């Protein structure tokens, strides 16, 4: 009917009709979502795999060590004649390092983010952002040596009482390592605040600083906080830097100048050490791994709560 009224050299609709029902178009259309769903399910399988990996050895560990001692004990001495397995010193070690890292990375990272998003020209941003991303990509083992062989000796000149192994130096370096995460993700959050907000505020005679601090930052708060939480879970999970520069002394105190041990460093210590297979020590790394997993889970729940709670509608 359509084609009658035209004189055309080609009748495309007719060709289309001829081609139809040939080939495997229909089948692909059904199959593809299933395949894609499976790829998406891999991430869930990974989580299940992690829990599966950790759970049996963890259970075995808690057959030997009381759960209560584990979560309340302030002594972590698995290698002593009478071993004790109180996780708190390891948690404290992790928190010390993470705390220092956050204290360094949040103000600096935010400053960088604000500079790049609100003050720098497009060109500058395009150059600096990828360079900063190199900082995030530097292998942590490199940072570890840097902390141990450069930062610690330098800090010792300032604080002579600083021990070779301490929480301060790896904390600072982890701060440097997560700085780009905060800077880059916060910059994304800040830049994605619509320009209309900036124009509105500038139009009222605000300086750029006032726009950044009073309008853009609050509007991007959920993204900024999420970046901080993500950076924090990176800091908690960081392994090589603390193994190399933090020491292996799990002490329950709040001193940052002395040797510490974090949960991750403990796992590395045992993984590369001489502890016998099948011993309680061996099972303990799974329990510690599980604890780490729970930690990041909690962090993530906080992050998603934050981004719901603080999301600004615009």
């Amino acid at each position, binding site marked *: *009917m*359509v*084609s009658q*009224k*035209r004189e*055309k*050299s*080609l*009748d*495309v*609709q007719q*060709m*289309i009709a001829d*081609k*139809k029902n*040939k*080939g495997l*178009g229909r089948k692909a259309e059904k199959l593809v979502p299933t395949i894609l769903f499976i790829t998406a399910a891999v991430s869930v399988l990974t989580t299940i795999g992690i829990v599966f990996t950790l759970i049996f050895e963890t259970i075995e560990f808690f057959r030997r060590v009381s759960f209560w001692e584990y979560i309340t004990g302030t002594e972590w001495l698995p290698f002593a004649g009478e071993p004790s397995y109180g996780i708190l010193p390891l948690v404290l070690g992790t928190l010390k390092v993470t705390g220092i890292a956050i204290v360094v990375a949040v103000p600096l990272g935010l400053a960088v983010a604000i500079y790049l998003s609100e003050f720098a020209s497009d060109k500058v941003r395009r150059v600096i952002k990828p360079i900063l991303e190199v900082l995030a990509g530097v292998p942590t083992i490199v940072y570890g040596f840097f902390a141990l062989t450069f930062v610690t000796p330098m800090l010792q000149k300032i604080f002579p009482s600083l021990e070779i192994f301490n929480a301060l130096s790896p904390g600072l370096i982890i701060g440097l390592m997560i700085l780009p995460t905060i800077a880059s993700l916060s910059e994304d959050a800040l830049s994605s605040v619509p320009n209309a907000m900036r124009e509105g505020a500038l139009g009222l005679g605000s300086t750029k600083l006032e726009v950044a601090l009073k309008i853009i930052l609050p509007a991007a708060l959920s993204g900024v906080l999420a970046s901080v939480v993500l950076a924090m879970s990176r800091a908690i999970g960081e392994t090589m830097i603390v193994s190399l520069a933090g020491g292996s002394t799990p002490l329950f105190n709040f001193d940052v100048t002395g040797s510490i041990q974090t949960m991750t460093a403990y796992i590395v210590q045992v993984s590369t050490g001489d502890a016998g297979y099948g011993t309680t020590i061996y099972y303990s790394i799974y329990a510690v791994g599980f604890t780490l997993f729970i930690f990041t889970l909690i962090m993530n729940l906080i992050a998603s709560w934050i981004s719901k709670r603080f999301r600004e509608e615009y």
Partner: protein
Amino acid sequence: MVQAIVREEQQTKQEMKVLQNQPRENVYETNNLNLWYGDKHALKDINLNIQENNVTAIIGPSGCGKSTYLKTLNRMVELVPSVRTTGEINYRQRNILDKGYSVEELRTKVGMVFQKPNPFPKSIYDNIAYGPRIHGIKNKKVLDQIVEQSLRGAAIWDEVKDRLHDNAYGLSGGQQQRICIARCLAIEPDVILMDEPTSALDPISTLKVEELVQELKENYSIIIVTHNMQQAARISDKTAFFLNGEVIEFDATDKIFSNPSDKRTEDYVSGRFG
């Protein structure tokens, strides 16, 4: 002055109709169409018949449901997950809202041109050949022919024939829009839906597109949404006035612009709001 133009154009149109002197079939018959976006009742009891080889204009203030109605005609509105419809839209006597109706088939028959030119980030050639290719036409010679024929049909062949393999984003807005029209012509649809096709274009490009619409209606049925009342007056045969999701008035274009039956239509076409 506005009205003078309107009247003049409408006269020539009516003359043409008389000359052709043939009854026009309905391409679309819309019966009691209702549409909701979630809770929002966006289209209310629409009843509209659209004739073939005709330009039908849809006008109305922002948010009145023009685009929604247009997108219902090729079921593009379904891309919004929360959409719900009742009623029926018969395209060539078959209800396209039936579950069994293949949207892909519908959309090969019903082309669409959008408000903002939206060429693919590919070469001009690949843009035009996209439709035929996805429908299985692979033969290089046939494709070459289709591309040329469609670009000619969209009155842009001469401007781009030497740069068919350049990226379509290198073209100006007006050229891009005609590329999009050509892309749509490449599968030789029966109906062409146009959603404010000139609102992002400069005056000269607008004129070209308007002329093109006039030519195309010889072979295609065209439904065009526009916020420019003069444009509706200039190029359409029939005009529907939408307000708040309802069709307030649907009639011959000259009637709508010179002597509307509804007060609200009159207010609108005289520019009292919108």
